[in-house]
């Protein structure tokens, strides 16, 4: 328990101390809101700012939690992971601590954007909305921290790692409907987007932020808040279940892989991640 808590605090401290990345993590989302909001202004979307913001917030949570992969690789290179692994601390508690701290940081970033967002166009009419928002952010944060940790443990070469990471995050965010409405995508990309967990996370989150929970499935589809595949509608509830399922799978994979990874092959004398594993 102590180990989990300490690693959790450590993650938060590191986040708070890195002022530059903190500022940029706030600037970028609003930049995206500005650019994409302007592009889709004339579309059928009734509140483009809130529509864009919801997408941007959930992508920020997604990217921030996935960053656990990079920070874990950093910990391997800096040697801190070795200190952890020769200690009597149980590896599973280390994995849990890392995932919790990354998920918390991701949620915090989401909250900050949301708070700023209330000044430029997000309005809540129900008191349950913020709670639901928080819950969804925590879930998405946990799921993709798990994915991130899993990536860190299976990575064998740091150079390819950065490329793989970008190659995974970019398409996942761009064909999730977060920035570009799925209805505007060509058919081929739309089919791919059905296999993207972020599609469901975005749809669910957007529905919560825009307070459309009372709408019928058909109406949600029309507003772009639910996905219809071959006439079958993935309801928000089902989306949520899908996300949780993916989360379970990756959290299990990540902790198992982390506990079992043979860190003896770790090449500590490597200056960068490129020669991390011998």
């Amino acid at each position, binding site marked *: 328990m*102590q*180990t989990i808590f*300490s690693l959790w605090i*450590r993650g938060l*401290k*590191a986040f708070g*101390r890195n002022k530059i990345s903190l500022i940029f993590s706030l600037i970028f989302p609003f930049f995206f809101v500005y650019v994409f909001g302007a592009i889709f202004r004339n579309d059928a979307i009734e509140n483009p700012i809130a529509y864009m913001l919801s997408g941007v917030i959930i992508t920020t949570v997604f990217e921030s939690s996935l960053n656990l992969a990079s920070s874990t690789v950093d*910990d391997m290179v*800096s*040697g*801190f992971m*070795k*200190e*952890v*692994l*020769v*200690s*009597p*601390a149980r590896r599973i508690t280390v994995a849990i601590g890392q995932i919790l701290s990354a998920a918390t940081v991701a949620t915090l970033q989401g909250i900050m954007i949301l708070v700023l967002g209330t000044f430029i166009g997000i309005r809540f009419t129900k008191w349950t909305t913020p709670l639901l928002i928080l819950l969804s952010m925590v879930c998405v944060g946990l799921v993709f921290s798990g994915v991130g940790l899993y990536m860190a443990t299976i990575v064998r070469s740091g150079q390819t790692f950065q490329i793989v990471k970008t190659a995974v995050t970019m398409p996942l965010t761009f064909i999730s409907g977060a920035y570009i409405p799925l209805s505007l995508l060509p058919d081929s990309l739309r089919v791919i987007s059905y296999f993207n967990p972020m599609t469901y996370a975005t749809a669910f989150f957007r529905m919560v932020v825009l307070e459309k929970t009372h709408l019928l499935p058909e109406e949600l589809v029309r507003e772009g808040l639910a996905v219809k595949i071959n006439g079958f509608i993935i309801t928000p509830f089902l989306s949520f279940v899908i996300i949780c399922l993916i989360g379970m799978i990756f959290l299990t994979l990540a902790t198992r892989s982390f506990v079992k990874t043979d*860190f*003896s092959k770790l090449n*500590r*004398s490597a200056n960068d991640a490129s020669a991390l594993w011998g």
Partner: protein
Amino acid sequence: MLPIIEVSHFTKSYGNFTAVNDISFSVEEGSIFAFLGPNGAGKSTTINTLCTIFEKTSGSLKIAGYDVSEQKSEVRSSIGVVFQDTTLDTKMTIEENLKMHCVFYHVPKNEVEERIHFVLGLVDLLGERKKLVGALSGGMKRRVEIARGLIHYPKVLFLDEPTTGLDPHTRAHIWEYIVKLQKERNITIFLTTHYMEEAEICDQIAIIDGGKIVAHDTPYALKKKYTKDRAYITTKNSEELEQLLISYQLNYEKKEGYYRVEAEDITHLLQVLSLHKDAITDIEIRKGTFNDVFLEITGRKIREEE
């Protein structure tokens, strides 16, 4: 005294390459034990296996009675490790690093503050405890690591090349701390080094080369066994000195302006030379060094490859 580290027939191989080949040794509690050898001799492999990071290929390794392969958790609690490269969390302060370590090693909460104070005092870093580790110099980082390796009061402290890459002044300080520690807390210290001169402080030395222990004894005994003392003599009367050395069957070499004489027993040599003392204008005596020991045992210098 009881052996706290017991290694018997330990072998570690990677594929076809055997890094450590059937070595056996034991270390007594409360002593300083050094593993001496060139890079790639198997020093770090042995340390890493003792620290439960690597898996052995065969043999038996025990620390404080616990088997390093079977009772990892108990072994990890009994040891402190300072690795060759730093393993500090550079984004955190010294204090935070130490506190984190205390959590990992289950140090009772009410003792943490007192122990931080104690170990930082030991390495003269009390004033820096709020500093970020990333901003410290190499020597300071090493001191933080030594402090951290001790804070959970381990029975054995492993130091893998504790002074490599540090300037002579810092190196001397690190050694002061090491000796102080061993005296004050009766901790067993197991270290590796390729600085020969550092080995003299240790109680026992094992010289490892090519994955084998080629010699294991006290520094004094090793020197006595493998080195000769030398005298460099300048004389006004070469003929007389030469005759004298020949009559006592002492090997000498005539160099430009001086004689180089080797002797197993330096007092005997001095007695002989006292017969010639009026003619001697200068004399210098050099004791054998660990470099000589290493050269004698392995046929090459320890840092040849560097």
